[in-house]
């Protein structure tokens, strides 16, 4: 006699245990330390912090360890954790002009005040697997320059701004919106768009940015400036009434210079795209800047025809936590609805027994 | 009695460029007005402003609503405007694909407006759709076919049926025969003329083709660079043009 399937609880417990065992791997190998992840897989940590929307290297490292290196899963862990954190306010806007620069390049000018500072980058490496690394070689010490990098480097956007060649970002009094507190309303303001893109999946944005370069809504970009380094985070507690520095973080900022625009009132000016990521997330910052500019098509009077210019399409599908959840939810039981479909299809076929099945 | 449509000083600018400038006229029930001119003359801009799809820079467009008489269509609020566009008005696009749902059957296309205003009897909706397909000379057998399988002329006739099913009082047409070959055009024009007369429709027809204007329109407005350079009864304007531009237009029509 058929007995209804039971044992879901036990199955889940066993699955968890099996997963924990697989995560540990061979007990003979040393346990992975969070310091190792933070120290030697820093770029993974950077991405997880950016898309997880929390700046905490140790938490990100833990998430990466818990997720066995699946970064999207790690991002999910951070986001879920973030939900529980109390919020006591917003920082002052980061002053990236005052950044302690470790890398700063511009493809718009051959040379500029402060110079082209390569910093730590894979850019000019030859992508040859380094087998010495597999053996655990220690790197040579990098040579120290005879003088430090310029303390303050003018921004390329400001250089162009002196002549009025590039659009000014409008200064607003309204506080920026917050997608973690309010649902996205369309059409979205640039503040929410940028927040959405900052949290958005790097792969998705990269593909959209790529598509814009291949003609799907070309914005004729130049990398005006990419800078990476430390910035101070300042917060003004109500009780004090003035801002204090509560720490410093590393960020990568990208300002794209794009196709110029003019109108009958305003002479032609370059337009801008902006990208920002925690740590050294340069690819992300660049992709974000390209998509930011593409999404501004409407406000700049351009025909919005390409996917990268479609605000609703981009913003509704950029979040990999949402995307992963919904795609993978297909694994959940759907047998009741499937049963309904079976009933219908059988009924329809019974109603037309003479029809041949399609070849 | 009110005019059906009363337009005053209608102007639409694109930055410094003139779309249309200072257009004024009245349209009466059952009247067909043609707007002619070459491409770039501003006729499409004008039509868009008149049909509530493009807000003018200045001027008014007032429609004689059933409840409140002459009302500025841009002052009336979107819900009312949409209702108007679904019932009292029809819009026939140059490209019929813009005015149809290509993914649903011909019958559904025609029946949609009825369903939008509350029709809930499948059989009756289908019967009305069938009737209208016949009126626009589409074989009733095609009622369940997707528009993807229709020819250009058929698509245009389907679009017309879709618009007329709620007995609108005013129909806007943008180059209704554009893109169709000559014999198909002739048949379509014939149909339009008959429908307009039989149903007492008022219409505003934008066209660059003077033959179309002559066949369909009672009155004409000739546009050049956004302004109306001449207007009057169709036959008068075409047979005895006063403005040099109209004369040029008329004389450059190829005689078969």
């Amino acid at each position, binding site marked *: 006699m*058929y007995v*209804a*399937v039971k044992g*879901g*609880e036990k199955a*889940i417990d066993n699955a968890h245990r099996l997963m924990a065992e697989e995560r540990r791997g061979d007990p003979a190998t040393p346990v992975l330390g969070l310091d190792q992840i933070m120290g030697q897989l820093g770029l993974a940590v950077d991405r997880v912090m950016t898309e997880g929307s929390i700046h905490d290297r140790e938490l990100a490292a833990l998430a990466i360890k818990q997720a066995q290196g699946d970064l999207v899963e790690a991002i*999910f862990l951070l*986001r*879920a954790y973030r*939900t*529980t954190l109390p919020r006591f306010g917003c920082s002052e806007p980061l002053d990236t002009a005052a950044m302690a620069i470790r890398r700063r390049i511009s493809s718009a000018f051959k040379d500029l005040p402060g110079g082209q500072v390569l910093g730590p980058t894979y850019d000019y490496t030859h992508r040859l697997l380094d087998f010495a690394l597999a053996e655990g070689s220690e790197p040579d010490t990098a040579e120290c320059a005879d003088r430090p990098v310029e303390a303050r480097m003018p921004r390329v956007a400001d250089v162009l701004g002196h002549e009025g060649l590039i659009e000014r970002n409008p200064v607003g009094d309204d506080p920026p919106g917050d997608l*973690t*507190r309010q*649902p996205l*309303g*369309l*059409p979205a303001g640039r503040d929410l768009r940028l927040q959405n893109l900052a949290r958005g999946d790097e792969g998705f944005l990269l593909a959209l940015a790529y598509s814009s370069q291949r003609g799907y809504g070309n914005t004729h970009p130049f990398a005006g400036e990419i800078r990476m380094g430390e910035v101070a985070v300042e917060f003004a507690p109500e009780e004090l009434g003035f801002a204090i520095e509560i720490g410093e973080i590393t960020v990568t900022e990208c300002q794209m210079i794009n196709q110029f625009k003019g109108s009958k009132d305003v002479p032609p000016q370059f337009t801008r795209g902006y990208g920002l990521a925690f740590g050294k997330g340069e690819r992300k910052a660049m992709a974000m800047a390209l998509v930011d500019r593409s999404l501004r098509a409407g406000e700049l009077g351009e025909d919005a025809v390409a996917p990268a210019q479609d605000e*609703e399409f981009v913003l*509704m599908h950029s979040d990999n*936590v*949402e995307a*992963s*959840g*919904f*795609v*993978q*939810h297909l694994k*959940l*039981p*759907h047998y*009741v*609805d499937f*049963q*309904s*479909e079976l*009933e219908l299809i059988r009924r*329809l076929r019974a109603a037309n027994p003479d029809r041949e099945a399609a070849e | 009695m009110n005019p059906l449509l009363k337009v005053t000083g209608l102007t639409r600018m694109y930055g410094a460029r003139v779309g249309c400038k200072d257009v004024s006229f009245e349209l009466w029930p059952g009247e067909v007005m043609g707007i002619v001119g070459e491409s770039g003359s501003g006729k499409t801009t004008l039509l868009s402003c008149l049909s509530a799809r493009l807000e003018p820079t200045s001027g008014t467009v007032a429609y004689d609503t059933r409840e409140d008489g002459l009302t500025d269509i841009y002052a009336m609020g*979107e*819900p009312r405007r*949409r*209702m108007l566009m*679904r019932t009292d008005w029809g819009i026939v696009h140059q490209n019929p694909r813009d005015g149809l*749902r290509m993914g649903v*059957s011909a*019958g*559904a296309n025609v*029946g*949609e*407006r009825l*369903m*939008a*205003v509350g029709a*809930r*009897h*499948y*059989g009756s*909706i*289908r019967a009305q759709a069938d009737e209208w397909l016949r009126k626009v000379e589409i074989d009733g057998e095609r*009622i*369940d076919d997707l528009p993807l399988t229709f020819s250009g002329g058929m698509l245009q006739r389907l679009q017309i049926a879709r618009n007329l099913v709620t007995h609108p009082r005013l129909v806007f047409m943008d180059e209704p025969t554009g893109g169709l070959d000559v014999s198909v055009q002739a048949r379509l024009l014939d149909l339009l003329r008959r429908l307009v007369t039989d149903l007492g429709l008022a219409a505003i027809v934008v066209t660059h083709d003077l033959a179309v204007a002559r066949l369909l329109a009672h009155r004409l407005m000739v546009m050049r660079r956004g302004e109306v350079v001449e207007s009057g009864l169709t036959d008068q304007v075409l047979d005895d043009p006063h403005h040099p531009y109209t004369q040029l237009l008329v004389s450059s029509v190829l005689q078969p």
Partner: protein
Amino acid sequence: MTSAQGYNFAYLDEQTKRMIRRAILKAVAIPGYQVPFGSREMPLPYGWGTGGIQVTAAVIGPADTLKVIDQGADDTTNAVSIRRFFARTAGVATTERTADATVIQTRHRIPETPLAEGQILVYQVPIPEPLRWLEPRETETRKMHALADYGAMHVKLYEDIARFGRIATTYDYPVLVNGRYLMRPSPIPKFDNPKMHMNPALQLFGAGREKRIYAVPPYTDVKSLDFEDHPFEVQKWDEACAICGSTDSFLDEVVTDDKGGRMYVCSDTDHCTSRQIRREAAE
């Protein structure tokens, strides 16, 4: 009352619960209308019930008794997972008996046992927007709801009849709530639609990923869309439940061998078990 280490009762902080309750109140005030809300990331993935979980977390209290079902069963993996989540973070009593629950969170079914006043049914919703397949743009569907511009929905039903001779939607079947708003009841089979009409319980719908909450207050008119000459009808089976003999509940088809052998059992496990018990008691 215990809760997981360092977490507030039912996981969400009180501010967030208040925000969700405000959204719920708006939803109850406008039956069937989708209220946007600041959905939070939850420890379960989007698409796996985060909307339902947030609604439940906002309304549940220490004195409540919670039942969680998925496909009508208490023991399916996700129902187990969600029930455990609340046991851990809220320490509330849980039950498998519909009649004993004060809050029931469900995925894809309405319990067969009729609900009573004072009970809350929380539905997990994947796609809240009934017009989504006809019109992908949110900016457009919002207008359509505001203007009650629902002609396109009937077009779809018309097409089904033209093509198949009958309406081909078998689950997530659209309804008109309180004579005004078009609503998606979540992927419950159409078999369950009539249960929503004039139900004494409060019905709440949570879509976490899409960030919408909507509601059907007790004793509200809920009508499944149809045509006068093609009225709404529910599924029927020729078979009875192989376990309890029920002929009027939704049956799951179970494949028993690879030669096409199958049997049918109640999808609602509590309903089936209760009937079994009553039958045995009568013998």
